[in-house]
């Protein structure tokens, strides 16, 4: 137990790596998901085909496989490209490989969440706004978006919870995040059980904090009066 106390500052820095990686991946996933959902809703045949391929294929692959493919495959691709163009050796960052893989993966899930939420907005409301003389941009911002957020939030919160847990597997490529550091430290002081228990507690804290945050958001965007 004393060993753990000595290592807590280090592990907390690892937790910061985990959380920042998760947040950056979520931002990337949100952009990709929004783009894919927009392509699916408003795009032509080619855009729709690209989006369908992306969401279907990516959701069939486990997170760890994608991370290994992007990290090791990406490094090989950079090496080959470098050899062709005569660069110096460029090392792919573990951190950014993790952000890229997880963002790319969960973008496919968010695309589905966003598309579902958009379809739930009653058409009549948008038509009503136009009939009242509102322009497309104010209609989007003041009629569609608030409802879209309301419908998308539960699914979005769900994806975030899964995404956070997914970041644990980035430690497999040697990233010094919460899991990676606890693994190294726990084995070197021969107390892996205590160190991994601490990791579990940290993840529960992250889960708890984000649940509280998303519940507050859902209350903020709920229909007033209907859900007391």
């Amino acid at each position, binding site marked *: 137990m004393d060993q753990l106390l000595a290592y807590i500052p280090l592990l907390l820095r690892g937790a910061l790596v985990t959380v920042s990686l998760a947040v950056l991946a979520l931002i990337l996933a949100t952009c990709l998901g929004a783009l894919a959902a927009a392509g699916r809703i408003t795009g032509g045949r080619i855009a729709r085909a690209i989006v369908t391929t992306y969401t279907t294929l990516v959701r069939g692959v*486990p*997170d*760890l496989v994608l991370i290994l493919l992007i990290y090791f495959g990406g490094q090989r691709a950079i090496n080959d490209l470098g050899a062709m163009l005569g660069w110096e050796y460029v090392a792919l960052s573990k951190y950014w490989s993790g952000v890229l893989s997880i963002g790319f993966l969960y973008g496919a899930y968010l695309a589905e969440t966003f598309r579902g939420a958009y379809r739930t907005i009653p058409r009549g409301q948008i038509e009503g706004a136009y009939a009242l003389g509102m322009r497309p941009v104010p209609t989007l911002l003041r009629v569609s978006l608030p409802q879209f957020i309301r419908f998308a939030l539960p699914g979005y919160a769900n994806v975030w919870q899964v995404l956070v847990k997914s970041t644990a597997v980035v430690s497999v490529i040697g990233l010094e995040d919460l*899991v990676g550091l606890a693994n190294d430290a726990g084995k070197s002081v021969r107390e892996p*059980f205590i160190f991994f228990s601490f990791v579990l507690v940290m993840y529960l804290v992250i889960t708890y904090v984000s649940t509280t945050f998303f519940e507050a958001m859902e209350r903020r965007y709920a229909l007033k009066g209907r859900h007391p």
Partner: protein
Amino acid sequence: MKWDLVLENWELFANGVWMTLQLTLLALAIGFCIALPCGLARARRVPILNRAIVAYVYLFRGTPLLVQLYLVYYGLSQFDVVRDSFAWPILREAYWCALITFALNSGAYATEIIRGAVETTPEGEIEAGLALGLTKFQVTRLVLLPSALRRALPQYGNEVVFMMHGSVVASVITIQDILGAGRTLNAKYYVAYEGFLTAALLYMALTFVFVMAFRGLESRYLKHLDIELPKRRLLPAAMR
């Protein structure tokens, strides 16, 4: 790309598929056996049990599977009690550690699925059973469970796919599942894409098989219900 490497080593991948399927299906089966009583106890708010099950479900659903696996595989060996116990021959094997962890994990997710399905069973179905003179146990066995479990099918199908995807972490503790086979191939021939791409394709194929199987089950067992079946759904949209 040297795809002939993959073809030459097809047995490696065949064994990997078998290992992944075996781990996934066994974990799901054991997990279901845990989840059935736990889900019922949760739905019925059995006094002390309810709290304990909430804690179990929260712990396993709120933390990454990889860390759970590390805790069982590396963590338990820290204690001399475990190392000296009769269970050590089992707990020192990566395979059994993975199976135990996956089963407990899947049990936690399935508990919530079953609880939800049981809680949404129409009260009238239970009352009708009791009115016909069935005992409480008979109502559970003949009315409640057949009704609840079939309505749980879509969500359980998701759980099956995610358990299969989750089982990749077994390769981290040296188990030769699909990803393990891919990593072995890459290490053996010093290639970067072939092993992982083959693994990705195999996981994708297995995902489609599971999704198709559940779609078949759903159209059979949910036919009588007046709900729109997800015809166009190719992959699980909801997450764990």
